[in-house]
Structure formats: structure tokens, C-alpha cells
């Protein structure tokens, strides 16, 4: 328990990669990749195929959403991500060294935790990562077959009519 608290405080105070009011530069992003990639891969298995550039794009989209929010919400989201990281680390060791399957099993347990705060922390982290992954218009079109049709039925017919 003491370890958990100390770990949590350490990350909460020094949360690597996030700085308020500042779009993350490539430096902090590199540090975050190491522990966010396993979390993302556990939540979205297809993310295992992402190269570094694609992963950066996912994280930048997530950042953009976070940086829009009031400072208090931003801070809570960052704490949530670091709490999840700490809880996974507590069970499995450093997150960056884990296989996605091991992380996924741990996350699945946290999802059904008796503590609502832990469930909420996982939900917030999951939402941010999924925003970066599924919210990307390029990926929506290429992988999910979804593209907004501004002209509706007409736009679709124009495209399908030779």
C-alpha cells in the first residue's frame, strides 16, 4: 500500500510528458510512448501495428482534446492516467516492459474494481486513448470505412455514379 501511495504521488507530481498549457513537444512524447503504447495496445489490439509516427499522431490527438479542457479537468485526467499506470506497474512491473496481454488482464480487473475512482480513472484513460485512435479521420476512412458525407445521399450517389 505504501508503495502504491508513494508511486502514485511520484507520478502525480512529476507526471512525465505532460505540462499544463503546453502542447507536448517531441521529448516528453517519447517518454510517454513507452508506457502509453502498452495501454493503447491492450485497449485497441489493432494498435500493435502502429509505427512510431502513427503512435505519435494518436497521442497528439489525445493531447489536443486534453488541452482544450479546463485546467482542473486536465489535471484530473493526467492523474487518472498515472494512477492506472501505477496500478498496472504494481502488479506487473514497469508498464513499458509488459506484453499487451498481461496489461490487458490487469486493466480488465481494474475495470471491475470495487473502487469507483479506479474505474473512473480507467474510463478516462481509455476515452483519451480511443479519441486519439478512433477519432482520427484518416483512420476512420482507411480502417473503419467511415467518412462524413457532407452532401448526404447526393454526395454518395455522385461518387458511385460513373
Amino acid at each position, binding site marked *: 500500500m505504501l508503495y502504491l501511495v508513494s508511486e502514485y504521488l511520484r507520478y502525480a507530481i512529476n507526471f512525465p510528458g505532460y505540462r499544463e498549457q503546453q502542447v507536448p513537444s517531441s521529448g516528453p512524447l517519447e517518454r510517454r510512448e513507452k508506457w502509453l503504447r502498452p495501454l493503447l495496445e491492450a485497449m485497441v489490439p489493432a494498435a500493435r501495428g502502429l509505427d512510431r509516427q502513427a503512435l505519435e499522431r494518436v497521442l497528439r490527438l489525445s493531447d489536443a482534446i486534453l488541452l*482544450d479542457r479546463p485546467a482542473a479537468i486536465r489535471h484530473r485526467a493526467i492523474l487518472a492516467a498515472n494512477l492506472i499506470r501505477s496500478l498496472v506497474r504494481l502488479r506487473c512491473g514497469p508498464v513499458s516492459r509488459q506484453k499487451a496481454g498481461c496489461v490487458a488482464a490487469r486493466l480488465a480487473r481494474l475495470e471491475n474494481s470495487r473502487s*469507483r*475512482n479506479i474505474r473512473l480513472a480507467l474510463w478516462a484513460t481509455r476515452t483519451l486513448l480511443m479519441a486519439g485512435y*478512433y477519432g482520427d479521420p484518416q483512420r476512420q476512412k482507411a480502417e473503419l470505412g467511415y467518412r*462524413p458525407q457532407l452532401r*448526404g445521399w447526393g454526395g454518395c450517389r455522385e461518387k458511385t455514379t460513373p
Partner: protein
Amino acid sequence: MRIVEADIAIVGSGAGGGTVAARLAPLVARGKRVILFEQGPRFDYRRFNGHELEMSRMLYREGGGFMVADGTVSLAFVEGYGGSTVVYTGTSLEPPARIIERWNLPGLSPDELVRRARCYAQDNGVHALPAAQINENNRLFVAGCRELGWNATQFAVNTRGCLGSGLCNLGCPNNAKQGTHVVQLPRAESRGVEVITRARVMRLRERRLEVEVGLNPDGSPGEWEPGNYEVRARRVILAGGVVGSTTLLLRSGFDRTLPAVGRYFTCQPAHILVAEHPHPVQNALGHPKSFLWDERIESDHFFLETCMYPPFITAKNMTGFGPDHERFLRRFDHLQMILVLACDEALPNQRIVLDRRGNPQVRYRLDSRTIRALVGGTRAAAKIFFAAGALRVHAPSARPTCLETDARDRIETRIRTEYFLPGTVSVSAAHLMGGCRMGRSATDSVTNVDGQVHGYPWLHVADASLFPTALEANPYLTIMALADRVADAVLDKEHA
């Protein structure tokens, strides 16, 4: 601080504010000055590109993710010219008689509200879409209901020239939706009502408003120079939406004399459910919300509507993660979607308060009745999905959340209330109501039946915060009908 004199100040430009502005516009020709303040900017529909993250950030407060204090429900509402009428699906239901009767307010009859609502339905182009414009996602809902012997009802929607882009919730790129931003506000402005956007009303004193005017999102000035203003108005009408109007009253100290300010908040919490079909389902094209099923609304407190949301919103609103979750998303063009809405109780401890910085905080908890309603709605939706031919259904309150066809006869046991974990199950709400409820006295309400704040004859409220309880239906036409009523009361006073 600059001082501005006005006869009437309106705060907010959504379904309530837009309606009041249009009704009071003829006063301008009689030499009165009517000013409407809107906190957000004017939107140019040509910039609505349908990209969900970009549009959510542009249109919604906190990108559509305004969380209640305990983090279990996200609230979606817009700050901008037209308010949430810019982003709702245009579904237009008449005020439900049983709810208006339950409100039991002297002088407010269902017939009168329905009559007023019908005027706005006509004005705003409300009609049922022809069968040819109903997409497959909606047709599957109807087919599933029919198979079960249930009666799905078609929504009327307020569109003119709808091209079926299906992007209602992200701003119609064809300006087809007839919200107040298209109908009432331009009409009011053409008759001389001044609409000041990027104008945040900070406090309300006796017939005085403290207003902060900012720059447009692109840095250009708006209608007034940026800065602080004191607006002196003989009458003030609050229509800033549930969060906006309530926050302003709280920030201005009205809760000292009106203890009900902020209380009895309801939001009709909702789930998005998805099911995979063996064949592609045309879901992204066509109006997303054309049918509802509400036969168990009185007994089990839920109703179902068709819906369609883009990939991230769908992913977020599904429960869980990993391969099962991903499989649904990978089959996005095979998905049927249903929205489950719960009718939550109006309780005094479900309330809006201010945090230490004076910002709104919604203290709302999913109570056991609401959870039972969401679970009951999930069961009904699962039955519709399977009856319509779905291969698998995502049910947030099932373990595991993915139900295959062999579960169709065990839905009652697979989907259970004890599996509904607040914080894990995504719940969102867009039908915010209450906070400045109408009533008979200042002890348990904020305004009288005409929307006049108890003890303040110069101050009215004209938005969904007036609702004493949840409406148990999509609220837009009822808000307009009530706002119309408030406008009548104000006009009577002006004429007197």
C-alpha cells in the same frame, strides 16, 4: 466599464432565448431596445465538416465531455448562436400531456402548450420524413419492433431540404435543420433585436447585468468591442440553458432567497447500444433519428430511439475495450444503433452548485431507479436487435458485454442490474432540465408558471431549467412553447 441602457436583455440564444427574441422583436419598432447576449460565437455552417473531434471541440462545451461531479455521466450542450438547437437531431415531439398534468401548475394546461408547440412546429418546418428517406438503421429498428409486436413511432423532424448527411449532432453542413439559429434569431435580428455574441454575463444585480465581451475564436472583434460592460435593463430574461441560467442565478446570490435554485436537476441519462448484422447496414447516411419506442415509459421509466454516432463517440460510449470492443468498431458499416434513455426523478439533491472559482458543478448521481431503467432499456434494445437479425449485441450491463445469438433467449439473465458499474459503463446526457423549476412558492421552486422569478418582477426564465420534472421526451418543442408563454407574460407587462 462601459454602460449600456436597454429595455429588455435576453441571456442565451437556444430554443428558449431564440423564441423569446423573435416574440419580443416587434417591440423594437415601438422604440424599445432589446439586446440578446450569447456566450459563444456565431457558427458558419460552411465550416461544419463532419469530423467528430474537430466539430465537438468547436461546438460543444468542453468538447461534449462536461462531466458531472462524480464523473459517471457526461453532459453535452452548446454555447453559441442557436445554442443546442445547432446540434440536436431536430426531433420535435409535442409536450406530453401526462407530464404537464403531473406538473399540476395552475394555468398551465397540456392543450395550451400543445397549441403553442404546433405553431412552432409549423414555423420551423417540422414534418415526418418520407419513407424513401428513412435509412436502413432506422428500418431495422422498426422491423425488430414489429417482429416483437411492439409499436415504433416515427419522429417528426424540423428540417428543410435535408440531404441526409447524418451529421446532425456535429452541425448540419447543409443548414437544413431549422433550429433557432436558422429561423427565430435571424428573424429577430432583421427586426432590430441586437444579438451580441461572445458576451458572457457574469453577474446579475437589480436590473443590471455585468457582461464580459470577448473576441471571436479567430481573434476578430464581434458586435461589441471586447471589454467589460454594465447593461441596465428594465427586464431581464434568462435563457442560457439549464447550466447557464442556473449558474448565473447562483453566482448572483439568488439562492439566498430562493433555496430551490440549482435543485431538481434531471438529464434523461442515455446509453448508446450497438449490434452487428451479417450484412452492411446503411447507418451513416440519412437522418439518424427517425423512430422511437416508448411503450414502457410509464411502467419501467425508459424509452428507446434510433441513433447513429461516428466512430470515436461510439467507441467511447461502448463499455470495455480489447478484442470484443474492437470487433464491433471494425464492422462499423455493419452496425445498428439504438439509444436507451432513462426518465430520471427530479430530486432536490440532484443539483447544480458553484465550485470555488464560481464555475458550475453538477452534483448528480445515477440512482437505483435510473440504473434499473437503463438496464431495462438495454434488455428491450437487445431484443429488438436480435429480432431484426443481429449477429451479436454489445450490452454494457452484461458479462461479458458481447451477446451472441445464442443469448437471445436469456437476455433477462445475461443483462443484469448488478453488472451496471457506474464509472465503467458510459452514460451521457443531452436533455438537461430543471434547476430553476416552475412552481407555486419560493420554498420549492424558482419561478411562477409564467417563468417570473419569485419576488423579482423584472426577472424571467425561459428555458429547460423551468421544467419541474424530466419531460420524458425530447424537450425542444416544449421549451419553445414555454418560452412563448414567458414572452406573452413579458409583452403583457410591457403593454400595461
